[in-house]
């Protein structure tokens, strides 16, 4: 059970119901055998308990942590998270402000304050605060996934693109960031962005040739570029080739997936017809 919790902690899984189930039993029945691990388990279970509206469990974990670490900023942050879960945002903010007074570089407290703005629906304020923070502490790449989701939420595609550029720099083998960058460029639209999108979808496929979103993305961006009246004959020819390649890969993937499974016939047929109809508009 201990190992399960450790795995979920290390891989950042948010399977809160399972964590509460396993963690509660561990704490109630086997606390004495956990040694120093118990504190990090209290923290993990407390956060999961907040996610599942188990304030009783969250409160008891918090009490144990407060008793053991009375002046800890980390524990104070957890107390703040509990107040957030109870929607007592003003009280939570006061707590985080007191942490920041002691330690202005405390990333966790800043993130929580910005999360509160987001929970209250104040996305543009949240982005402004995060911008300000990143200006002073730009090494904080760890903020980037958080910034990314905020940018998507408020339709700030340029910011999302900037964020993804940073993430791709620090995680060059991550196919998901390449593919998401392609999606953002596609969404921004315009010939240049579509060509860029196509390149990044292709890069994502190089890193992981089973990324279906990248495959479809490549197909759609190449098709749109080929269909544009502004491109030269050579560019058109090249993009028709890329699109045809992507279409054949998509067909093959769906044929293999559909084998022997009656219920998949619907999605296989839908994809086949879609590829056919898009071909017609391209030529």
């Amino acid at each position, binding site marked *: 059970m201990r190992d399960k919790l450790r795995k979920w902690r290390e891989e950042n899984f*948010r399977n809160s119901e399972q964590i509460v189930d396993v963690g509660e039993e561990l704490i109630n029945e086997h606390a004495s055998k956990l040694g120093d691990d118990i504190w990090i388990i209290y923290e993990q279970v407390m956060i999961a308990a907040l996610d599942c509206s188990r304030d009783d469990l969250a409160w008891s974990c918090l009490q144990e942590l407060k008793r053991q670490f009375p002046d800890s900023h980390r524990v104070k942050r957890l107390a703040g998270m509990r107040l957030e879960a109870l929607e007592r945002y003003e009280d939570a903010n006061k707590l985080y402000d007191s942490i920041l007074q002691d330690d202005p570089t405390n990333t966790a407290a800043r993130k929580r304050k910005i999360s509160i703005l*987001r*929970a209250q*629906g104040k996305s543009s304020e949240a982005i402004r605060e995060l911008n300000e923070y990143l200006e002073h502490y730009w090494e904080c790449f760890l903020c980037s996934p958080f910034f990314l989701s905020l940018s*998507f*939420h408020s*339709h700030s595609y340029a910011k999302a693109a900037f964020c993804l550029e940073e993430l791709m720099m620090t995680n060059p083998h991550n196919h998901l960031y390449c593919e*998401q960058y*392609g*999606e*953002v460029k*596609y*969404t921004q*639209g315009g010939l240049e962005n579509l060509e860029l*999108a196509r390149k990044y979808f292709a890069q994502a496929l190089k890193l992981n040739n089973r990324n*279906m*979103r990248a495959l*479809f*993305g490549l197909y*759609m*961006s190449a098709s749109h570029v080929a269909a544009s009246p502004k491109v030269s004959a050579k560019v058109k020819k090249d993009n028709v080739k890329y699109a045809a390649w992507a279409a054949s890969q998509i067909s093959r*993937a*769906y044929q293999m*997936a559909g084998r022997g*499974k009656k*219920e*998949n016939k*619907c*999605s296989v*047929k*839908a*994809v086949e*017809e*879609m590829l056919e*109809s*898009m071909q017609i508009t391209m030529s």
Partner: protein
Amino acid sequence: MGEVELSCLAYAKMYLHASQFPRSSVNGLLLSSSPAGAAVCITDCVPLLHSHLSLAPITQLALTQVDVWCSQTQQRIVGYYQANACVSDSSPTPCALKIAEKIFEQCNNAVLLMIDGEKMFPGCRVPPIVMYERKDARWALKDKHTIMLRQWEETCSIVNQLFSSGDQTLLVDFDSHLDDITKDWTNQKLNAKIMELISPANGNV
């Protein structure tokens, strides 16, 4: 404008979709197998996304594929639903309005349905939905009295049964399908399970 009827099947799947991803915004399309007329009968829905709803490529892809599937199965896309990640906010986002506009171009009594997260608790007596219709070039709240959910109590009980039997995990949305294309976004299996539960209530054999 006209009346809108929401079937148990469509409601159940929307509810399951929103419950499956409580921390994300989710969206999907509303379908009808009835002929076009003054009243809109929403007979089914297709859950689409639970991540990055505002990005274009996958949304376009999903719309195209659902369109194709509808023409193969004599259905039409008649609306769009969305549940926001922020439970206290059930207002349509810019991307919801955009997609609803696109649907309106093909279907002039299209509806936009927002799920009200605050009313999604067991025992709630009111359906957790807010519906909008196109009026005077904008999306306006629909009069509650023109929205019909037949056999509301039975619908609630069917949803509860799905949760207690664990069948709610059968729901596949388009996003999950792209993660694993052997999963069926038309949800044939789940549809069959729900229809089984519905029949005794209707007294149909």
